[in-house]
């Protein structure tokens, strides 16, 4: 056994050395490597997968149109399973591969870790979908394409209270998820500003996505509260289960549901039993008649055989924004990553740069890295 161990350890060391030297070749001179990480496998892989596919379409479009300044774009996304350490591993790997710019990571926790790691090297991060403010607060190299959690929480509260005038709102959110807690906290703050009292004007029940799959109890509590609207700042899988569970109660059958951009994709999860109106805040409407959206949706369906969601659209926009900003700032693709980074940050916050894409027209960015664009509230058909 001892000898087996020795041989194994030797083999390990050897593999290491080979690994060290084999990949030292460097990247092709005429490509710009866009890095990113996301949940490509596992429980949340639909999000990472959508980002990868959306971004890939943008890269192919850019390359087909001749690339940028004689360079072609290359996208490399690495699995991070929504974890911080995994995102850092992915970052290190991409760094070693010669990444020039990045689309950060897909989910908030890993995007924060990714952006923190990128800060010291000065690698630009433009996350398509990580909505927590912590992500862009890491540094002035970190930007996002999607709405932030606070923005959406406020929009939701205003919509439910000011616009529609609901008097009793039931909320169910996920305490184990950054996105969900971020949305809920912003919502609660806004409700306090609107002088609404927790317990009488609205009630809150929680679950943890890693420990709950059954929402019967929470829905029963909402029914007992007698709410006339339900706010679900969560992802669509759980939201669909809650909506279906609510549909089994006569009292909740027709109570409208409002969600945030995480609800994108819920349409495929609902069945005929759900008759209530389900709406969500999103910058991207798949049924939009605008030419660029229709073209993207067609290309996505054609290539992957399914409908794009908001993650895919955000990722497409992220790559396009990188491209447009490079053009606007006349960035030299051969320059060091940190120079590209500061040039891009200057362009985005410069005040003159505006981008119109799938997820909004005339997007601009604040110094903090947050995007300014218009929100739509989409109704699920």
């Amino acid at each position, binding site marked *: 056994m001892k*000898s087996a161990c*020795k041989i194994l350890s030797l083999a*390990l060391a050897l*593999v290491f050395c080979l690994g060290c030297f084999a990949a030292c070749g460097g990247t092709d001179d005429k490509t710009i490597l866009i890095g990113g990480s996301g949940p490509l496998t596992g429980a949340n892989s639909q999000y990472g997968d959508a980002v990868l596919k959306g971004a890939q379409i943008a890269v192919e479009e850019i390359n087909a149109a001749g690339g940028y300044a004689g360079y072609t774009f290359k996208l490399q996304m690495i699995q991070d399973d929504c974890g911080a*350490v*995994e995102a*850092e591993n992915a970052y290190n790997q991409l760094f070693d591969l010669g990444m020039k710019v990045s689309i950060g990571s897909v989910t908030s926790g890993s995007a*924060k870790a990714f952006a*923190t790691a990128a800060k010291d090297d000065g690698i630009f991060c433009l996350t398509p979908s990580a909505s927590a403010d912590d992500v862009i607060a890491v540094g002035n190299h970190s930007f996002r394409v999607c709405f932030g959690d606070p923005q959406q929480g406020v929009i939701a509260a205003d919509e439910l209270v000011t616009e529609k005038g609901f008097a009793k709102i039931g909320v169910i959110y996920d305490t184990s998820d950054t996105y969900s807690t971020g949305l809920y906290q912003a919502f609660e703050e806004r409700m306090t500003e609107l002088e609404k009292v927790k317990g009488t004007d609205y009630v809150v029940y929680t679950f943890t996505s890693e420990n709950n799959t059954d929402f019967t109890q929470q829905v029963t509590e909402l029914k007992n509260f007698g709410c006339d609207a339900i706010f679900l700042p969560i992802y669509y899988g759980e939201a669909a289960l809650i909506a279906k569970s609510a549909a089994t109660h006569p009292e909740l059958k027709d109570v409208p549901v409002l969600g945030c951009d995480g609800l994108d994709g819920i349409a495929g999860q609902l069945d005929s039993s759900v008759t209530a109106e389900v709406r969500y805040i999103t910058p991207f409407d798949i049924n939009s008649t605008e030419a660029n959206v229709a073209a993207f949706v067609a290309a996505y369906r054609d290539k992957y055989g399914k409908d794009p969601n908001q993650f895919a659209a955000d990722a497409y926009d992220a790559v396009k924004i990188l491209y447009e900003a490079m053009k606007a700032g006349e960035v030299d693709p051969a320059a060091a990553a940190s120079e590209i980074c500061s040039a891009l940050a200057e362009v985005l916050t410069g005040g003159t740069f505006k981008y119109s894409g799938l997820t909004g027209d005339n997007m601009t960015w604040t110094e903090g890295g947050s995007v300014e664009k218009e929100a739509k509230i989409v109704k699920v058909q």
Partner: protein
Amino acid sequence: MKKIRLKHYINYLILGGALALFVALDLLGALKRSDASLLTQIGYSIILAVSLNLVVGFLGELSLGHAGFMCVGAYVGGVLYNMLIPACGTVAALLIALPVGGVVAAFFGFLIGLPALRLKGDYLAIVTLAFGEIIRTVILNQDFFGGPMGLPSQRFGDRLYILAFALAIVTVFVSQNLRRSKHGRAIQAIRDNEIAARAMGVNVTYYKLVVFAIAAFFAGVAGVLYASSTSLVQSTNFSFNYSIEILVMVVLGGMGSITGSMISAALLTFITVKLTVGLPSELAAIEPLVYALILILAVMWNNAPFLRPLRVKLHDKIAALRDRILPHKEVDGSDAAATAAWDTIPTKIPMDALLSTDFTVDHSFDADRPEKEEK
């Protein structure tokens, strides 16, 4: 004069040699950043596996909550970094965090050791599992610990792997010396037959608590290392699955074998990380499949009774090969006798007793080689 025997130093040689090799590569500039961070992860995986081996291999109790202790260490480390770094700088913070994280985790290890006095086998296993999950759930819901986003921590650059390997050597040192001391023999006596050990006057209570506390201490140290290697300590990392992964390292390495734990920890971490970052995104989906297959096949190869002749054959071949390469290896009688005497102390583990309360398969009449040989 006491003879220096390679067998007692092989673990240090492997770890020290690997460390020297990588430092040399690093100085030559050939160590890439992804490799350096992988090495740190391998370092703390080794600490985790070797310390869990104390509980599972030496004491003979199944623990499914090792990641819970690591979680304690990691959060203590993160909190201390946030408090201490502004006051006294990073190095001092690290030096304070390592022992404090370990001691806090050891305290929890002591707590978990208490039910171990009353429970055995599966029941204890599920209590350790429950403990790990309780710790994680409580931490997840405290805003003080950063909630679901995680606790911001301090990253200590690319050279952290040197510290990780140094601490791994310390862990191996403690573990190996504990095993060779009179205390170690008492612990193994408890493992082999608790009632008999008690009858011989071994203080079972004391030793069980000590082993749980020591193992938890090192898991806590590994946790602090973890906190030093990442910018965000997230409780999701320390789930039940991670405890299982550590257990897998120990079992694949051969329960009770420190060298085995070390090597399988290094290999498994290497495989997991390399599969994750190395596979192109289209193939990322097969990563868990490959991992599962490796796991099943490795366990089969190591343990399946029907493969035993094959293993023996391979073992003999390797031995023959070794003798050909190193013909002058001192295999004189006295040494062999000493080795044999040494080997009889850590006898075979009554693993059946570990998981089942009553059912034991007795292999003592097997005409085959004794278990020890193939581990």
